[in-house]
């Protein structure tokens, strides 16, 4: 036995005044009585020997000395080796994935809203209640990645606060990283125990095998790793029961196949229950209902539907399943419809009616036609510039398409950026035949190039950084070259000597090219799954707008640029911008996330109504980006535990209540001292002791 505070043992010296005070004789009160004969008789019957009297006297002294000894030992804080050695190191893993938001015991008639996560936290707190005083616990929560809420600590208040701080998320489940982390940590501890609180609705086979290996006593003893894992106690505590659920597993917006300037929305709904479910899907645009579709889903059925021909744009699209089930998170899905802005396109050509007509057919293209002479004389900013059989002498940043440029040894001077690759035009090729093309590339989507007749083309040598889209037997025909500041599409064919302009593929290619130049895959960037990192690259104009919002403080040389992100619950984050790029990883809840500029002038005094008014009317130059974050997970929609886990789930003594060694020894000593004082008081009152 050791003492944490051995100096306190000097308090045993207090025994001296106790003994001294005890030696002093008690002064008795004088009480006259009419006769002593009854008292004499009484005390004659109970006549105690002087030895017993002394013992009785001594017993009182001993009780007081024992009381002092218990208190002094308590203050000295003794430590017992056997308790220290038996101390456990518990790693508590709480699953907080989307399925843990399911109502614990779902009943459509009952208003109960306690979720599986609430139950898991309650169970976790019960486990903390049963910890022995030397036990350490670390709290980890997980969805797709683990988060350590507290490292190993014995401080139960800290552990409880860590458990209380676990918030629900709409992220899908992946226990493996958390388990790997826990195993790695546990193998460094003498008595590790891992407790997993989860609904176990999705576990990989590898993880399941890990569980079995840890729990199996027949692990291979020759395997050192297995040997270490065998020393780890694993407690799997299943939270929640089997419940029905219908959920949206996909809700995505993409460009229309038939019209590059239209949108299509893909919606998938799954019924994971064992009985047929009837529900309806309500579609809202900016919170206004515009469509309702009734669904009847047989058990396990996935129904997929595509919505197209949207007449609106630039807003929030929301799909809501009108059904009462255990998990409400996947009953709503979100999407954004970008604004279909006009694209300024400059066509530099002497004359090409095919090109002009192909570009003019789309009302979203703001086409300007110029001759090479006019182009050289007045260079304006256009989002896309198409050079038809012409090559400028210099080229700035932007999006350019070269169609059969003049045969020149040197491509246009493209500035001082040496990193920009160049192409080299070789000999002319007669009637090349297209042999292969990249069907999956956005420019060539929905395009058929078989048997296209081409009169003339160049044997072009594309730069190494380029990507060849169309190839003939002899040489590449079409390639793209993308650099950070420039996108180039190069077509080495003379379309005036080809039947391509007469094919349907031609306007499609042109539309795809314009869209690829301007928007590329951006529509996909605004649709993420919960837990994914939101990335956004600011252009120069946007960066300038952010800088204008910075406080005008000359003492700060390089003030940190920040923008504001507003989440689904109106929670806001101020996110710094590094290298003109935004990274945001708090996409834990499904919903819309809006990116706006931080107004520094109003942020400092947001308490006054005047400032709030000012903030609401702040002109952000219309800068607002909207992301739709969805759970959209088929595995998460299945909220029932996987097969095979029930054999591993065991009743554990961890939540059976408090253990004897829950408190440090000094508390028991104080408790004993209190009991002793009560006994002493009782005995004194009963005159068992003097």
């Amino acid at each position: 036995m050791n003492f944490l505070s051995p100096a306190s043992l000097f308090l045993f010296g207090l025994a001296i005044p106790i003994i001294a005070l005890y030696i002093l004789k008690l002064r008795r009160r004088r009480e006259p009585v009419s006769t002593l004969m009854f008292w004499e008789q009484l005390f004659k019957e109970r006549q105690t020997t002087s030895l017993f009297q002394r013992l009785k006297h001594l017993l009182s002294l001993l009780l007081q000395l024992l009381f002092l000894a218990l208190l002094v030992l308590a203050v000295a804080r003794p430590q017992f080796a056997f308790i220290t050695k038996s101390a456990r190191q518990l790693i508590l893993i709480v699953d907080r994935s989307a399925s843990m938001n399911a109502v614990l015991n779902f009943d459509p008639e009952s208003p109960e809203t306690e979720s599986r996560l609430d139950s898991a936290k309650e169970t976790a707190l019960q486990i903390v209640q049963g910890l022995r005083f030397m036990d350490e616990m670390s709290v980890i929560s997980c969805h797709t990645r683990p988060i350590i809420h507290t490292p190993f600590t014995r401080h139960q208040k800290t552990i409880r606060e860590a458990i209380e701080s676990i918030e629900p998320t709409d992220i899908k489940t992946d226990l493996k990283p958390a388990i790997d982390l826990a195993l790695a940590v546990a193998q460094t501890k003498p008595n590790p125990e891992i407790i997993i609180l989860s609904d176990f609705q999705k576990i990989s086979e590898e993880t399941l095998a890990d569980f079995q290996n840890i729990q199996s006593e027949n692990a291979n003893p020759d395997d050192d790793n297995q040997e270490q894992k065998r020393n780890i106690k694993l407690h799997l505590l299943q939270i929640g029961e089997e419940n029905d659920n219908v959920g949206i597993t996909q809700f995505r917006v993409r460009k229309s196949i038939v019209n590059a300037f239209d949108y299509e929305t893909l919606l998938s709904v799954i019924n994971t229950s064992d009985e047929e479910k009837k529900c309806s899907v309500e579609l809202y645009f900016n919170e206004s209902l515009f469509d309702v579709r009734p669904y009847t889903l047989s058990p396990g059925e996935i129904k997929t539907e595509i919505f197209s021909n949207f007449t609106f744009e630039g807003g929030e699209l929301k799909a809501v399943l009108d059904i009462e089930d255990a998990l409400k998170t996947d009953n709503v899905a979100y999407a954004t419809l970008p604004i279909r802005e006009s694209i300024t396109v400059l066509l530099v050509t002497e004359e090409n009616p095919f090109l002009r007509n192909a570009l003019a057919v789309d009302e979203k293209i703001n086409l300007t036609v110029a001759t090479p002479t006019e182009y050289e004389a007045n260079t304006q900013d256009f989002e896309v510039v198409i050079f038809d059989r012409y090559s400028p002498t210099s080229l700035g940043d932007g999006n350019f398409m070269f169609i059969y440029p003049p045969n020149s040894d040197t491509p246009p001077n493209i500035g001082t950026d040496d990193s920009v690759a160049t192409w080299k035009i070789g000999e002319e090729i007669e009637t090349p035949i297209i042999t292969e093309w990249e069907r999956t590339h956005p420019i060539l989507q929905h395009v058929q190039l078989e048997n296209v007749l081409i009169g003339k083309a160049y044997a072009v040598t594309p730069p190494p950084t380029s990507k060849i889209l169309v190839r003939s037997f002899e040489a590449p025909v079409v390639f793209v070259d993308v650099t950070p500041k420039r996108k180039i599409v190069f077509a080495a064919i003379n379309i005036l000597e080809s039947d391509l302009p007469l094919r349907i593929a031609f306007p499609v290619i042109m539309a795809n090219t314009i869209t690829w130049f301007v928007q590329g895959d951006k529509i996909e960037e605004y649709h993420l799954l919960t837990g994914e990192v939101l990335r956004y690259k600011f252009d120069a104009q946007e960066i300038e707008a952010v800088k204008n919002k910075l406080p005008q403080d000359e003492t700060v040389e390089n003030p940190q640029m920040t923008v504001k992100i507003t989440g689904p619950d109106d929670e806001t984050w101020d996110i710094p911008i590094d290298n003109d790029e935004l990274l945001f990883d708090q996409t834990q809840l499904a919903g819309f996330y809006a990116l706006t500029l931080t107004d520094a002038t109003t942020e400092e005094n947001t308490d006054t109504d005047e400032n709030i008014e000012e903030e609401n009317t702040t002109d952000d130059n219309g800068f607002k980006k909207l992301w739709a974050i969805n759970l959209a997970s088929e595995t998460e929609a299945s909220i029932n535990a996987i097969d095979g886990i029930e054999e591993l789930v065991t009743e554990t003594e961890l939540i059976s209540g408090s253990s004897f060694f829950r408190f440090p020894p000094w508390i028991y000593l104080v408790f004993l001292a209190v009991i002793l004082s009560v006994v002493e008081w009782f005995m004194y009152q009963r005159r068992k002791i003097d």
Partner: protein
Amino acid sequence: MNETQSAFDSDFLKQLEYLYIVSKKIFAGRIKAERRSTRRGVSVEFADYRNYTAGDDFRYIDWNAFARLDELLLKLYEEREDLHIYFLVDASESMTYGELPKLIYAKRVAAALAYIGLSNLDRIGITAFNTTDKSRLPVERGKGKIFTVLNFLDQIEASGETDLEQAFHNFIHMTKRRGLVVLISDLFDPKGFTAGLNMLKFQKHDLFVVHIIDEKEAEPNLLGDYHLVDVETNELRPVTINESHIKRYQDLFKKYCDDLDRYCTQREISLVRTMTKTPFDELILRIFRMGGFVT
């Protein structure tokens, strides 16, 4: 304890007259009139018959009976006599115990009973006894002697210890005629009460015991460490008293009283026990109702 407290005041004297009137009513319902003697003598109350013997007075022969039975029978009549009532008042130091000292209470009881006795033309004698003083009032008769009685009682002071045997021994030797002995005492004699009472009983006295106790003697309210002081001997006894001691004390006290009750019952001694908190007139009426004072 208030030793200067007078036992008799004007209210007390009024109570005496009231008690006498009440006692007459009670006796009227029970034993009709004055005290009767067991001796046969001359009076108007027929007692018995006996056979005529030579020398008997012819006037008492029942001639009617002779006519019917042809046998000479002599009629016997009860002889009337005045009664001697002796009050033995305990004047030991223990009688000073209590908020209302037992001695004051004893004096009042003695005075009340003496007044009633004098009113009934009985002869009253009072003896105060303890180990140091044995003051005595000779036998008096007549209601007019009540003030003599009261003065005597008023002058009794408590001192010394209780020794019943010694006290009664002196009493017997100074009292030739038998009578009713009214003993008023707490009977706290360390040597016991039986020897003294036996002595009185042996002398053919009718015995009436008034046992006076204080409430604190029956149920002491003592817990803790004390030096108990015997008020008679000033002896000190260091004790530590707890609840079990108190309970045992009460058992012992009850046993003492039970022994006294049993003793008196076996020897046809009238006994009345009272606490000083009981109003003395209530005690007097109780005595009359139980009938022990007048046999």
